[in-house]
């Protein structure tokens, strides 16, 4: 067992690009779910909006890469309206159902042969991040050189994406924190607890819910952009239902209705996930058996790890719905 390798990789997971894009997506989900009580199970759809917005500039529109940012945001606003208009007047379940369905359809459409011309089919769109990386080079970060120390060693390409990513986490986190301390955030928190009470006080609940859904969606879109920039590509299967569920797990792990929770949660998620992944991989080097019954072999490590994600979410919901760092008195995605 190579413990030093396991710990090295795990620590990289803590601050790596996965934690970055999960954190941004989780902040967005937190605005919707943690603060407003909106069940958006289609965050992956919003992320796809951002990734494809960037990708399509080169692949289809043949315009400057930088137009991808407003384009992605536009896509996500349209998606948010499509999801929100039919559901936000109804009980919470309907939003969950529609978001899950819409995200799934988006994935099918972008991977379809029919629309390959626009979205590149199942191969997605590749090699469009060059303009972004050139900016990194302008700041003196060599794409291929290694930077850092000990376990925290990254290539210039990774480092540049991480610098931008963590800056965005800090900026978005700060803005959301400010918003939630403002009267606007107060209305959202009140809606989470009891819509009717808020209505009776003269607030247009529908409008606030829509604002929250769109804001969270746009933040999710930014997360999708960072993820796509890191890879330099978009693949439709990176935006499946499961991704939303994992982000939700990471958020709940850190604690809902807290900005810090939505940043620490994803970091912890990837620390633990990377640790388990590497640990189990080494453990299951030879199939583990009881008698003739194989408990686990190396090809199953990924699935066992995701099973643990599911189990974690279950146990959190039963024993600590406020998350590890959440405050039970304040936490309330379930006001009733």
């Amino acid at each position: 067992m190579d413990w030093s390798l396991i710990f090295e990789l795990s620590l990289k997971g803590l601050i790596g690009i996965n934690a970055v894009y999960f954190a941004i997506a989780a902040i967005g989900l937190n605005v919707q779910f943690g603060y407003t009580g909106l069940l958006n199970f289609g965050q992956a759809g919003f992320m796809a909006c951002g990734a494809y917005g960037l990708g399509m500039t080169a692949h289809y529109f043949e315009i400057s890469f930088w137009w991808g940012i407003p384009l992605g945001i536009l896509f996500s606003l349209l998606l948010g309206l499509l999801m929100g208009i039919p559901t936000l007047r109804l009980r919470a379940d309907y939003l969950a159902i529609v978001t899950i369905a819409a995200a799934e359809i988006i994935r099918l459409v972008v991977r379809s042969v029919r629309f390959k011309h626009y979205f590149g089919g199942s191969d997605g769109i590749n090699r469009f991040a060059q303009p972004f990386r050139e900016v990194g080079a302008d700041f003196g970060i060599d794409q291929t050189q290694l930077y850092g120390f000990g376990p925290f060693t990254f290539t210039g390409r990774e480092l540049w994406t991480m610098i931008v990513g963590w800056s965005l986490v800090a900026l978005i986190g700060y803005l959301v924190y400010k918003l939630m301390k403002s009267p606007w955030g107060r209305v959202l928190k009140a809606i989470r607890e009891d819509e009717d009470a808020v209505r009776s006080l003269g607030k247009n609940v529908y409008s606030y819910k829509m604002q929250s859904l769109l804001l969270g969606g746009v933040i999710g879109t930014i997360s999708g952009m960072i993820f796509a920039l890191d890879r330099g590509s978009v693949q439709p299967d990176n935006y499946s239902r499961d991704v939303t569920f994992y982000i939700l797990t990471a958020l709940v792990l850190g604690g809902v209705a807290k900005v810090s929770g939505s940043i620490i949660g994803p970091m912890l998620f990837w620390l633990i996930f990377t640790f388990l992944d590497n640990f189990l991989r080494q453990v299951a080097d030879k199939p583990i058996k009881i008698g003739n019954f194989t408990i686990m072999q190396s090809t199953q490590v990924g699935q066992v790890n995701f099973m643990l994600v599911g189990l974690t979410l279950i146990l959190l919901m039963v024993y600590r719905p406020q998350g590890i760092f959440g405050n039970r008195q304040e936490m309330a995605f379930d006001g009733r």
Partner: protein
Amino acid sequence: MDAETTMSPAARMAREALATCAASPGVAKPDPILVADSVRRKFGGITAVDVDHLEVQRGSITALIGPNGAGKTTLFNLLTGFDSVDEGRWSFDGRSMGRAAPHRMAKLGMVRTFQLTKSLTKLSVIENMRLGATEQIGEKWWNGLIDARWRKQEAAITERAEELLERFKLSHMRDEYAGALSGGQRKLLEMARALMTNPILVMLDEPMAGVNPALKQSLNEHIRGLRDEGMTVLFVEHDMDMVHDISDWVVVMAEGRVIAEGTPDAISSNPAVIDAYLGAHQGRSLLEDQP
């Protein structure tokens, strides 16, 4: 208890104005703030509300009573926009209302409370109060980002909230989560929060339900206080002592209709009212005997 000796000028005005009205369902009032015409609402096959005509006198305390299932709460929901009528129309403060959304009604000055208290338990008491204030600059997200835009207004709101908390004897709980309050205190908080909207008509749905007797008296005082400050109060209540005690006018509903109106004294001796209550009780006991 001799009400006459303790009566405030506002109360006297209300009673005098209403004294001219005949004690019959749908009677016109001298200065109505709320007028409902042919308001009907059906659920499935059952007509929950079927009110031909109803007026509420401005500046009065009007009680809405009736047996269970009489449609009182449904009527409340209709008038406050929480439910929409199948047919009929009503006007509030001279404005004709169609299918107004609840938040619009609240903005026009009609605020309500709920039968089951809706204090927002995970917000502090003072945040509950601040939420009630209308026209807040900081409730627009682009302003929310910039403290300077809303801090000043927030301070003013807080000051007013603190005054109201003082009046409702909740100051000591200012920074507690509303969830920490007792049932009666939550009723008070809900009422105080409603006042933050600067209403002209306050609609209270069973303000006394679940409130201990000690607190009832002070709640009564608070409701009288609202009228004395010029607000109109319409409330649903089962506690007949309280109804008799504080209301200037009583409206009785049964099976969705207004069956009687009048001063508290006139109502308590009205045979139709006694009949409605007795009838309802007989009906219920029949149901219960069924296997």
